[in-house]
């Protein structure tokens, strides 16, 4: 039986921007100035490498610049953005990217939790399993996509061979990548294969932080495994889960290599990053391509804001 213990009053939260309230003596001010000076070089590098190209992209998105052309550049206002949202290919790309992100991250999270729970327990060969589990993640995406391309081959691929000839599950071989209905699911499957180990490892780290005595206490209180999972494991795993989700969602939203290797710029699976690259490099529309890139950036910024709100809510 639990008893509510009268909690001592919490200390006042610190004023925004300072971790500790210090008296404003000259010595403290000098320390602050020094701190800024020491940080300045890094800030400068970040500004040059990250902020300047971003600024250029945004600036170019309002022009009709062309890649590799000596033609004079003019500002065209929001024309590029209007064009973007009137372009069916862009809308398809947006749809495919969102579908890919939602489905692949959902599957990877669920599978990741399951696998993390399994390898968190003690069994012989646990070390070997943990190491070998990383192999899909370690193989470069371009290389593993080519492997899967061969496996998915309609006539010679091993997947059709197993499903049709050995197991008899399908009556005739399916063209997994060529067929417009199965192509996106097939690509999602490749991404799940590659990234689930990564999720599992992040979640495993989160699991190992949970102290064992919490489980002991709950067992004494009569909780079964299912209750333990939902009421202890999952809530305590939330920080690690959110970090993993942030990583994966941002990565999935910018997906390029697996889709490009398997299907190129085909319209049934085109993603935002492929669309941006095609517009900017192949079609040489630097301005329009920059607009597409800015849209990707804004979507990701939105996701980051949403996620960090969730993380902050968790911390209070």
């Amino acid at each position, binding site marked *: 039986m639990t008893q509510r213990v009268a909690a001592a009053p919490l200390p006042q939260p610190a004023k925004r921007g300072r971790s500790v309230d210090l008296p404003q003596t000259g010595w403290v001010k000098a320390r602050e100035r020094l701190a800024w000076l020491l940080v300045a070089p890094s800030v400068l590098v970040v500004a040059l490498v990250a902020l300047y190209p971003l600024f250029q992209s945004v600036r170019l998105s309002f022009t009709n610049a*062309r*890649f*590799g*052309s*000596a033609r004079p550049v003019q500002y065209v206002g929001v024309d590029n953005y209007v064009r973007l949202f009137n372009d069916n*290919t862009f809308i398809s790309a947006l749809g495919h990217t969102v579908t890919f992100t939602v489905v692949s991250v959902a599957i990877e999270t669920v599978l990741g939790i399951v696998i993390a729970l399994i390898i968190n327990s003690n069994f012989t060969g646990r070390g070997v399993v943990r190491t070998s589990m990383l192999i899909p993640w*370690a193989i*470069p*995406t*371009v*290389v593993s996509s080519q492997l899967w391309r061969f496996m998915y*081959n*309609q*006539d*010679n691929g091993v997947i059709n061979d197993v499903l049709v000839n050995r197991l008899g599950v399908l009556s005739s071989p399916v*063209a997994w*990548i*060529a*067929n*417009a209905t199965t192509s996106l699911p097939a690509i999602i499957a490749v991404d799940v294969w590659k990234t689930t180990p990564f999720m599992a490892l992040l979640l495993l780290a989160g699991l190992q932080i949970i102290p064992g005595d919490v489980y002991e206490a709950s067992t004494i209180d009569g909780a079964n495994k299912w209750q333990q999972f939902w009421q202890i494991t999952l809530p305590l795993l939330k920080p690690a889960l959110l970090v993993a989700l942030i990583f994966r969602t941002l990565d999935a939203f910018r997906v390029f*290599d697996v889709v490009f290797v*398997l*299907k*190129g*710029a*085909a*319209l*049934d699976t085109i993603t935002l990053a492929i669309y941006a690259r*095609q517009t900017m*490099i*192949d*079609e*040489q*529309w630097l301005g329009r391509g920059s607009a597409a890139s800015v849209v990707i950036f804004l979507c990701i910024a939105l996701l980051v804001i949403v996620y960090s709100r969730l993380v902050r809510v968790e911390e209070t």
Partner: protein
Amino acid sequence: MPQYDSSSSPLGRLVAESLTGQISRREIMRRGMALGLSAPVIGMIISAQTRNAMAQEATPAGQEPGWSIVVPEGLRTDLNGARVRAVIAPAADPDRPWQEAAIRKFNEATGAAAEFVPGEQSATDRLATYNQQLGAQSPDNDVYQIDIIWPGIVAQHAVDLSPALSELATLHFPALVENNTVNGALVGMPWYTDAGLLYYRSDLLEEYGFENPPETWAELEEQAQAIQDGESADNSSFRGFVWQGNAYEGLTCDALEWQFSNGGGRIIEPDGTITVNNPQAIAAFERARGWVGTISPEDVTTFDEPLSLNAFAPGNAAFMRNWPYAYSVTQAPDSPLVGKVGVTQLPMGDGEGATHAATLGGWQLMVSKYSPNQEAAIEFVKYMCSPELEKSFTIERSHSPTIGSVYDDPEVVETQEFLARLKPVFEGGAVARPSTVTADLYNSASIAYHTRVNQVLTGQTDAAAAAAEIEAELQDIMSELGY
């Protein structure tokens, strides 16, 4: 402007040494990581090394590359160490030893200091790099090898070769010279050419009682179906006809052949008229759609040249549409198809204006407007695109020359009999893609075309709707160009 130079940067040294096989894979990975390269990039360097090693083994032993080069008469000898940096092949290209030998002989004959500058492997990447360098008006490279569809894109950066080389231009195939002429200026001198061909299994045709390869698409369908029905009893992955159906530039080539051979036009005519939304072109697309899943595997809509060759070369297809390079692959000593492969013109369609069609490929040499050594560079182009050098290139490296007289040369006929027979293809039904009329918007036009044709092939839209959409997009593009 940062310049890729194989001798100066650590990255350049890493790539150069890995390609010549001087360092082991472990060493590549170690140095790659030290340089901060990402895993995919390291993987690509390693795979390029493997490809290069394999390519080097494929060149016939015993003959020094460049043994057949005869230096043409009349070259200038007063070039006095002028530098000519020529980006004329990918870094790991099997032609590279011949190129370097040719450059050496040029330097001996003229006193210049020409050098081979390696380019990217994929044509799309090369164009991106060229755009970067030329867009920045870089004086670093003097001669560029350009694809047949790029003259319109790079014309603004090219020296007009007609004042200096008009006499040489008359020797080359007119269709190519015309393709390379933008607003009256000769942007690139033709160097070697390519055209789409129909490969067929002569042994299977004989076995199934077909005396001649098909003349029309209808005949091809009949022959392919018969052979596929017969062969698939023993070989479940045997297919009648393989070609390039992926949504990329290769599909533009194949689809242009279908519609042009059916009298449907060139997509965009040289005067700017759009010829894609007409009954003959639509019928051509519908016919191709009919092949997918019947005489061609459903996968064919993801095939590029290597994948279609992958189906044909081990003997799993009766017909293949591909470029001339595939022939030597099928006749390699360890190939199961030695002596069993025939090559002919692609079939024609039916109806008015039907003809044999072959999309033109091939490469040309251009001189950069920003080069500080234009005279030496022009002399280099004159040397490389001369009948003597093209003959040697054909004999040693099996490339199709762009000069008609080379095809009739007895030595060429003797050593490259297959290529010698191709002359009628280049002179007759060869059709160029509408790259010159669309200038630097060609890629947009090609993307509009091949993505929609790919959708027709996968059954996502019907041919008539797709043709109308293509026409609408092309109209947008042409109006941007002022038509």
